[in-house]
Each structure stands twice: as C-alpha cells, then as structure tokens.
C-alpha cells in the first residue's frame, strides 16, 4: 500500500466520521486481510462521491477491537509522537469505522490492526511515520482546526530526533509525560457548530455511560461443555413431549397393534337403513311396513294397533284368560312334580313304584282298552297256571310234605302249602269270575234298580245314620293304626296326616252329634223299618273279603238312581266304585287320608256319599262330581226332613274336607259350582272355592325338606370338628396280660395313674372346648387351626402393584370366565395386555400434533371461515396436544 493511498484513506475516514456517528453502529464479522484490502480500495475509489455507501461497507466490515492490535501496531511505529499505550479510547470508538489500513509492512497483522478502531490515533501514527507535515495536515483534516493548534507537537517533532526505533521498551516522551493525548472532546470541538452535533454528543455520552469491556472468549473445552449443556436441556425438553402418550400407552389395559380394517358399515341397523325397495315384492312389503296408519298407531299407542289387527277385545281377553289358566295349571303341576322329585328316600321310591303299578292296574280297568290288555295278561297267567299247575302242590317239596303228612309239618309249612293252594284257586277262579262279570253286566244294573225302593224308606235312613255314627266312632278310634305302611309311614306324611286327623276328628265329633240328633228324630217319626241289606255277588268282585264295601256301593248307587235313573251315570258310578275297590293303594297315593277313611267307612251311607265324591273327583269329567254330590244330598233331602238334610250336608262337608288337596290337582270348573251353590248349601261351594288355594310357601318348603334335618346335621358336623381338633381321650384299657401276672395285681384293676391321666385329659379337653371361640355360638364353627392345604392358595405377601390388602382381596374375588360374565363383556375382561396379529409389522410410535381446541371450535363456530380463523389464532398461541398414532400398513 502506498502512502498516498493511506493518506487518502485517512482523509476519507475523517469525512466519514461525522456521518457515521449519525447512524447506527453495526458490528460485522472480521474480514480476512485480502478482502479487507479490496474493500479499502473500493473505499478509495468512491471516496469523493458516495460517502454513504462506503459507510455502510465499513460498518459491515469492522466489528470489534482486539486487545492485541494496539500493541502490535505500536511496535512498528517508530516515530510516533503520540503514545498509544497510554491513551485509551473508550470502546465505543471501535464502531467508528475508519477504513485505515495502518500496517503496510506487516501483512500478517493486518487483520488484527484492521479491527482496530481507534481511528484517530492510528491515523496520527501513520502521519508521524511519514512526515510532520502530513501529520499536521491530517490533524487539520480530522479536526478541522488550523494547523497552529498542533504547534506544540510540531515543535517537539522538530526537536526530537531519536536514533533508535520507538517501541514499548523505549517510549516516546509524550507517552512518558502524559501530554499530547487526544480525547474525544478534542475531536468534537471542531464539530460543535456543525449540523447533528448535539445528537452525536448525546450518543457519545450514552455510550460512555454504558461502556463494558469485552470479555475474552472462553476456551474451546468449556465452550463445548456449555453447548452440550444447552443441547441437553433442549433435548430433554423435546423428549418430554412424549410423556403423555407414553403414560397413556403404559396405563392402557390393552394395546392393540392391528390392521385398520374399515368395513364401512358398522352394524346391521346401519346396513338396513340404506335399503331401498327395488323389486315388486319388496315394494309391496315396504308399503305394508311403512303404512302411515300402522306407523302412526305404533307411535301413539299400542291400543290402536289392536283395532287394526281386527281381533275383538273379548277374544284377546279370553285368550289371555285361558293362557293364564293353563299357566297356573302348569305351575301347580310343576310344584307338585318338584316336591315329589326332591324326595330322595329310597323306601319312598320303592313304595311309589309299587303304588304306580297298582294305579296303572286300576287305570287299566277304567280304560276299556287297557282293561282288555290287562285281561289278556291275566288270561295268559291263568293259562299258564292251568298248563303248569305250578301251585297245585306238584313240586318236589310239596310232594314230600304231602308224603310226610300235613299234620307232621310245622305251622309255617302248613301255611305255605295252603297259600299255594289258595293261589291256584285264585288263579283258576278268577277266570270264571271275569267271564261272569262280562256276562252279568246288565243284570246287575237291573239289580241296582231293584234296590231303589227299599232305600227310599226312612227306615233305611235311620239305619244308615246309626251305621254312620258307629263308623265314625270306629274311625276315630282306629285312625292311629292307619298309615303304618307304605308312603304313609314316611315322616312328613305322618306329620301332615296328624294335622289333618285333628281337623277331621273335630268335624267327625260334630257329625256324630248330628247323627244322634237326627236318629232321635227319625225314631220319633218312623216306626221300625228294615232295610234290605243285600249281599250280592257284584260284578268283578273276586274276594269274599271285599263284600262289605260292595254293599255300600250298591246302596249309594240305589240312592243316586232314586232320583235320576240315568244308566250312563250309574255305570260310571259303578265303575268308579269298582276302581275304588280294586285298588286302595291307588287312592292312598293320591289322597292318603281319604283312602283311609274310605276303608274305614266303606259300608256306611255317609261313606258312600263320600266315596262317590272321591271317585268322581278322579273322574275325567268334573261335572259328574257335582252331580253326584247334588244327587246325594238331594236324595237325602227328599227322604228326610230339614234336619236330616242339614245333617247330611254337614256330613258331606266332613267328607269333602279331606278331598281338598286332591282337588287342587284337578281342575274344577267354576261355572259348574255356581249352579250347585243354588241347590246345595254354602258349605259345599265354599269348600270347592277353597280348593283353589295353593299350599303356602312355608308349607311347601317344609314338605319338601321334611326328610333332611339340617340342624342336626350341622350339630353332627360341629361335633366332628370339635373331636378332630380336641380329640377325646382314650378310655384306660387294660392290655391283656399287662399287670395281671399275679392274683394280687389283678385285683388292683387299672392303675390309678392311668385313670388320673384320663381324667386330666378329659378336663383339659373340656377347658379347651370352653375356650373355643364358637363355644357359645350355636350355629357357627370357628376353627383356629391353620390348614396347610389352604395356605397354598394364599399369597404370602402383598403383591407389588397393590397397596392394600383389601384391594388385592377384591381383585381376587372378581371371578373370571364365561360362567360369571356375559359373552359381550367377557372379551373385554380377558383381553391380554398386548393384542397383535401375527404378520402385522408394528411401527414405532409417531408423534402428532393435534389442536386441543379443535373440537370446541367445531361446537362453537358455525361457519367454516370462523373455524379456520380460530384455528389460526390457536396456532399462534401454540396450544398443542399430543396424540399417539400407530401407523399401519
């Protein structure tokens, strides 16, 4: 660089100075020396015309002052009258960009010197280097003052001539004196009258006040450390955004990694909603379904729909009623079946089986076809008997007995033999009797009709009454004996029966009184009249033992037919009675008490009424029941006076009462009873009405569980537990041969210490029993013994995620499985933690920024424009929310 160039530069700097101050000071990067030089050259080129531009350049170029620069520059300035070392410019001056390249000789240092901004000083240095005159000129240029101002210096310049180069080791005198420094004030003085001075001044003051020394850059290691720290903080903050999704991810009971399959329609309803009728059929159906009338009715009220249905209300009600009836019937039947099914007793079932057999037997007789079958069977048996003569004492055993003579045998054998003979006789004779019955069906009917007249006599009535009285008394006496065998022997039956018996007893007593009174009256009014008691061999009567009931039956028949000789009915009655006779067991099964009574009263008049009742109840046609009842009572009414009828009514009540349970099973039509109520007294009707009553729940339960005694069982169990935990001490037993060596020892018996031990053990046991927690609790067993088997099923300590025992217990208590949960919720309950489909690539978590206010916006805003607007504002706010999304293929 030439000197002229330098000078030019300085001048340039001077001119710039003012303008610079008026502008903002900028810091720019330090430029490399080569670049700097170019800039300088540019500066020279445009020095005259375009000041502004240069200024800009300069401001960009120069940035800051480096500490070293001054020193280095000083080294080379030998003739510097002004000492730089001493002089320190305020820092702000670094910003005053002077494009003076001061060191020409040392290119290496150029960069540093460039950054040196103490422009005035440097310019001075340059001047001094070259010549005094130049210096003066420069000063003049810079300050705008006449050269005389700097005279002092000049003089000095003139005087001093140093042979050695000026350096820090030999400072010039100026430096030593402390004179000749140029302050900013000095430089400002010439500007005082120029434009913009006040502004400049202000700025300088401002800068002076705030001046801070620039710090040295820290070492690289430290710098990196700081960088890392900041980076870490930044990264940390950045990662923290994951916290929410990760938390959600972790807390989720189930995470699904599955393909997104979009079926389109979600439900059947959704699919159906999109349906439009196309074909004719579909259109027709649609018009029917979507009929305005129907739809409207459906929406408004269900009643309108009924009208549209074209079914009369009565029909519906009827239907409903019939349904209800059937349901109640079913229910009753079910109740009974349940009760019976619950009975576990073997004996009961055995007996039941037997009864059933018998019942079927009787039924077969009522049913003509079944009877035929039965007859065939019997026929077969008889044929067999005739063929084999099994019971004709033809066996070896019988022959031997015969050989020895019957007298020689003991009682048992004799009985057995006779029994066999009887059996044979039975089997053969029955055959004949059966034939007889089939043939003499009509004759018996006629016989019955013959009987009508004697029964009409009041005499017969009195006799009947006396008999009835007797029978009732007998019955009362013999009641206890009944029911010792069969189903009746079962405890619950016994209990039930007892109850019934008491009731019956009371009523029977009343009846007896009635009989007596009526008898007296009868005796008064009528003379002695004998009634024929016919002993007829009725149809299908096989045994002589059954004679008595038969009589009564016939009598009742006659009584009935007295009023109304409807042969059809009669036949029925006969049939029923026959059934009655044939199987007492069948009756027992259904209504045990009735059967008993029947047996007892079989030949009394009242009994006959009763039996007819009983049988007709079992008759498939309910109407006949009442007819029988009516006829019976009516006939009595007609025969006797009012008292009698009254008595009979009462009697009938007595009889009816025990039938009740049976009538529970049988459906009796209400309409029929209504008509009877007019004819018969209130007793009967009320009786039938009461039949509808179901046995109470308690009653049922008691009956059902009559067999098992829970309390007793529990007590047994408890005793067992007690014995197990505190075993009873063994009784002191003498071991055979132990202590029995001599006679004396034997006398001693069990040793005393053994006894004592036993005693103490007993005492201990009692004490421990008393100490037990359940000693005073009758219905509780508290065992304080640890069960090792149970211990296996308990967690030893509270498992990790649980904080309290209750919570853990609760969680254990919740059952799992299809037995405890509906299918819909089962899947959710049993869902594993991670659900993934094999073969589906799971991608790592990805982050999505979602606007939390979006939804609210949608609710609030109506127009789309507004929504967008709001979104924007939200974005500005920077409110963001995270959302996890699993990408799927």
């Amino acid at each position, binding site marked *: 660089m030439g000197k002229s160039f330098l000078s030019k530069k300085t001048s340039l700097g001077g001119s710039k100075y003012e303008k610079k101050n008026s502008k903002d000071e900028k810091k720019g990067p330090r430029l490399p020396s080569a670049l700097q030089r170019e800039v300088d050259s540019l500066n020279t080129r445009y020095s005259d015309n375009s000041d502004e531009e240069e200024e800009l350049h300069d401001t960009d170029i120069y940035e800051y002052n480096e500490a070293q620069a001054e020193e280095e520059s000083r080294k080379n300035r030998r003739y510097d009258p002004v000492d730089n070392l001493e002089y320190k410019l305020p820092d702000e001056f670094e910003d005053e960009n002077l494009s003076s390249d001061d060191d020409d000789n040392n290119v290496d240092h150029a960069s540093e010197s460039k950054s040196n901004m103490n422009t005035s000083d440097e310019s001075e240095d340059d001047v001094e280097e070259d010549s005094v005159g130049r210096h003066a000129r420069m000063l003049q240029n810079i300050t705008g003052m006449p050269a005389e101002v700097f005279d002092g210096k000049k003089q000095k310049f003139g005087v001093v001539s140093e042979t050695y180069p000026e350096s820090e080791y030999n400072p010039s005198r100026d430096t030593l004196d402390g004179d000749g420094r140029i302050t900013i004030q000095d430089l400002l003085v010439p500007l005082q009258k120029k434009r913009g001075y006040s502004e400049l001044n202000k700025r300088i003051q401002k800068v002076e006040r705030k001046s801070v020394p620039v710090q040295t850059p820290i070492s690289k290691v430290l710098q990196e450390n700081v960088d890392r720290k*900041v980076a870490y903080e930044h990264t940390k903050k950045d*990662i923290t955004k*994951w916290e929410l999704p990760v938390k959600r*991810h972790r807390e989720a009971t189930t995470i699904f990694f599955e393909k997104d399959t979009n079926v389109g329609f979600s439900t059947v309803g959704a699919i159906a909603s999109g349906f439009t009728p196309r074909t004719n059929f579909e259109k027709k159906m649609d018009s029917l379904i979507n009929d305005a009338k129907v739809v409207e009715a459906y929406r408004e009220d269900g009643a309108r729909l009924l009208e549209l249905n074209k079914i009369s209300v009565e029909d519906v009600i009827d239907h409903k009623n019939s349904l209800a009836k059937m349901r109640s019937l079913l229910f009753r039947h079910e109740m009974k079946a349940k009760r019976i099914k619950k009975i576990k007793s073997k004996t009961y079932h055995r007996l039941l089986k037997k009864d059933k057999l018998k019942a079927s037997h009787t039924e077969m007789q009522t049913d003509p076809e079944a009877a035929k079958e039965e007859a065939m069977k019997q026929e077969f048996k008889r044929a067999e008997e005739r063929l084999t003569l099994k019971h004709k004492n033809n066996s070896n055993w019988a022959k031997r007995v015969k050989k020895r003579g019957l007298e020689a045998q003991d009682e048992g054998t004799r009985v057995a033999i006779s029994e066999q003979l009887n059996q044979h006789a039975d089997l053969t004779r029955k055959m004949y009797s059966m034939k007889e019955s089939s043939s003499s069906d009509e004759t018996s009917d006629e016989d019955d009709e013959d009987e009508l007249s004697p029964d009409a006599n009041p005499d017969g009535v009195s006799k009947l009454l006396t008999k009835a009285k007797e029978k009732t008394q007998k019955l009362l006496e013999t009641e206890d004996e009944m029911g010792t065998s069969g189903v009746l022997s079962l405890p619950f039956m016994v209990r039930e029966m007892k109850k019934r018996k008491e009731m019956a007893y009371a009523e029977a007593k009343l009846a007896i009184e009635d009989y007596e009174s009526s008898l007296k009256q009868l005796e008064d009014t009528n003379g002695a009249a004998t009634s024929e008691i016919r002993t007829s061999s009725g149809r299908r009567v096989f045994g002589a033992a059954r004679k008595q009931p038969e009589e009564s039956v016939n009598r009742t028949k006659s009584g009935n037919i007295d009023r109304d000789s409807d042969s059809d009915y009669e036949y029925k009655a006969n049939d029923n009675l026959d059934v009655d006779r044939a199987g007492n067991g069948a009756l027992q099964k259904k209504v045990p008490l009735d059967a008993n009574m029947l047996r007892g009263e079989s030949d009394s008049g009242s009994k006959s009424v009763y039996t007819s009742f009983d049988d007709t109840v079992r008759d498939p046609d309910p109407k006949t029941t009442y007819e029988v009842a009516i006829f019976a009572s009516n006939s009595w009414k007609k025969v006797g006076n009012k008292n009698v009828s009254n008595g009979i009514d009462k009697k009938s009540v007595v009889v009816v009462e025990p039938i009740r349970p049976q009538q529970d099973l049988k459906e009796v039509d209400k309409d029929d009873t209504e008509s009877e109520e007019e004819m018969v007294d209130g007793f009967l009707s009320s009786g039938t009405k009461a039949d509808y009553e179901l046995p109470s729940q308690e009653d049922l339960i008691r009956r059902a569980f009559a067999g098992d005694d829970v309390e007793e069982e529990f007590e047994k169990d408890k005793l067992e537990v007690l014995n197990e935990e505190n075993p009873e001490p063994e009784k002191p037993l003498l071991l055979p041969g132990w202590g029995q060596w001599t006679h004396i020892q034997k006398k001693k018996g069990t040793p005393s210490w053994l006894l004592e031990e036993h005693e103490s053990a007993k005492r201990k046991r009692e004490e421990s029993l008393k100490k037990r927690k359940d000693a005073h609790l009758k219905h509780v067993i508290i065992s304080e013994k640890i069960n090792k088997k149970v211990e296996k099923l308990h967690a030893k300590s509270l498992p990790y995620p649980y904080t309290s025992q209750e919570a853990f217990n609760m969680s254990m208590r919740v059952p799992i499985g299809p037995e405890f949960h509906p299918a819909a919720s089962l899947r959710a309950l049993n869902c594993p933690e*991670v659900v993934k489909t094999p073969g589906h690539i799971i991608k*790592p978590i990805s982050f999505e920024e979602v606007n939390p206010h979006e939804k609210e916006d949608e609710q609030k805003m109506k127009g789309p424009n507004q929504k967008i607007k709001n979104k924007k504002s939200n974005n500005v706010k920077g409110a963001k929310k995270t959302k996890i999304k699993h990408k799927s293929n």
Partner: protein
Amino acid sequence: MDAMDGHMDSISCMTKNPNHLKDIFSGAMDGEIRHWDLASRKTVRQFHGHQGAVKGLTTSTDGQILVSCGTDCTVRLWSVPVAGGMELDDSIDHSSEPLAVYVGKNAFWAVDHQWDGEHFATAGAQVDIWDHNRSEPINSFEWGKDTVMSVRFNPGEPNLLATSSSDRSITLYDLRLSTPVRKLIMKTKTNSICWNPMEPMNFTAANEDCNCYSYDARKLNEAKCVHKDHVSAVMDIDFSPTGKEFVTGSYDRTVRIFRYNGGHSREIYHTKRMQRVFSVKFTCDGSYVVSGSDDTNLRLWKAKASEQMGVILERERRNHELREALKKKFRHLPDIRRIDSHRHLPKPIYKAAKLRQVMLEAERRKDKNRRAHSAPGSMPVEPMRKKRILKEVE
C-alpha cells in the same frame, strides 16, 4: 423353532428389514453377508465384498438399502431387491455388487439407520453421520478418544442417537444441535443399546456386568430398572416393536426375554449347540426372536414359547385368552408362580447363577457388616440402580 445354517464364521451382527417381515440379514466375521427368508429358513442371497469382519448391519426404513460396515474400514451400501421376485430356489448363488463403498480412516464397529430418514450413523473412532447420497460423512462427533462400540438411533425421535464406547460410557447425541448431548460413565462397559420404540425417552443398555439397565434419557443419574438374570456379559439387546419386552443375547450362551419393567427374565432360550450369542433381534411383528451366535447359526425362536402357531379360531383364541387371564390373576399364588417361573437350565448356567448368587450374597453381607461397624450415616445405602453408575458427564 429352527436353526439356519449357512455362514462359515460366527455371526457378528444382524438386522431386520423394517418393511418386510420375512427378511433378515446377517453379517459374519469372515465378511459374508446373507439375506435370509424366515418363512423358508433359507438364504435368499449373499453379499460379498467385505475383506474383514462385518461389524455392523442396518437397513433403511423403506427396506431398499442395506448398509454394512466392518473392520476393513469400509462402509458399503447394498441395494436390496424387492422381495417378491427373489424367492427362487437357486437364488442362493445370487450375489450383488455394493451400490457404494465409502472408505474411512478407522475400522467401523457399528452402524445404524435413522427411522424414516436418509441418514445413518457409523461408530468407530468417532461417530459419523452419513447420508445416502454423499460419500463423505455429513457430520462427525467426537467426545473423548475411545472407540465407540455401538450406535443406535431412536426410532421414535429420529434425531436422537445413543452410543456406547469402550471407555464404559453411554453417550447421547442430537443431530439437530449437532453436538453430543450427555455422557454417562458406568463401572463396566456397555455392549449394546436399544431404544424403546414405544417410549422414545427410554433406552436399555446391555452391560458387561451381566445386567441390563433401563434408563430415562432425561434422568441419567439412576437407572429406571435393572434387569438381572444373565450370568455372563450381555452382548446384544433388541426391543420388541410393542415396546413391552426386549430380548437379550449373552455370552453365557442363552437368549432371554425380559419385560420392559421386569427385574427378571420372563423366558430363557438355550440349546446344546448354541454358543455365545452375539446378536439378537425381534421380528417386526413381535412374535419371533432371531439369534445369531458363535456357532455360525441363526436361530429362530417364538417370542412366547407356549403360543400356539397357525390360524387360531375365534373360540379357541377366546379360550386361550381366558387361560392367560386366569394365569395372570393367580400369578401371585406361590404354587402358580413356581410353576410359571420354573425353567430347566443347562448345568453350567445353573451353577454359574448359583455362584453369582453366593458372590452377591457375600458382597451384601460384607457391606452390611461394614455399615454396622461404621458411624451411622457415613455409609449411605446405595440402590442397585445407582451403584453401577460412576458419573454423568455434561
């Protein structure tokens, strides 16, 4: 389930194709790279080129480019053909030339690819970040002079990566700020690191001291969880894509599966012929585990040993679920836990575990005695989670 034989030397590294379920690549110590088809358990193709051992393998997220690096100071990029057309039986002989070979100054120890990005990182003397399209690393980090042994990108946060180096340190880097971020020095070397793909702040380090340590990148002063059970150095670790469990391969010739928060392993796999396991991988659907070991074999395991394979009908699946739920419910009961956690171990491992237990017990006893004989409070109890950490360098 099966062993895949084919390599001539022990397998040093593996990578899965994130875009294709059946693909897995394995690199061996003799410089051979093989591409396996897991369905047929056969080699689909081989990549020849490395002069020394292949130390690192990785695949780009789209599965098109395979990056390998090795001790021959080269990084090689290979193009992976589309899987569909390459399932030929005679394709074993197929071999391809690398797309590019970049030569570095030092041997490379590991390589990992960024998730959903163009960059991959190699580890060696320093950590270099490369771009697919440039032959020079676009960035390189150096913090300390020790060799970096492993590098792993965070799949959730693609700009974050962690390395472990031979100075026993784990270092975190952030690409955006182009500086290392933090360094954690432990008492023993970390062999491998894996980030949790579902929890981007957490990573687990497989340590030389037989344990794995789960860390939160934000709180490095203590481990979140210490996963113990191995009896020798843990060589490699890989997270299941579900983020709920990870698999480790160890020098003790076993493969173990841990839950992400479980102190002990859920499952252990071993066979008589399996030697030191150097590399393990979970498949992309999280249902299989592949291990590569010293005996030159790749082995395929089920991630859940008792799981039924094949198509499972709805009813059957519901039944399985119910059984699992029952097991889960009663897992605290002593007997059930015993049955559930019982595994038959090879004798050496069983004995080593016992020995380790004894040693640990002795250490604990000694510590306890010391504590008992020193002034109260002078020896604070240090939890295991902090014990193995030397310091955290900023």
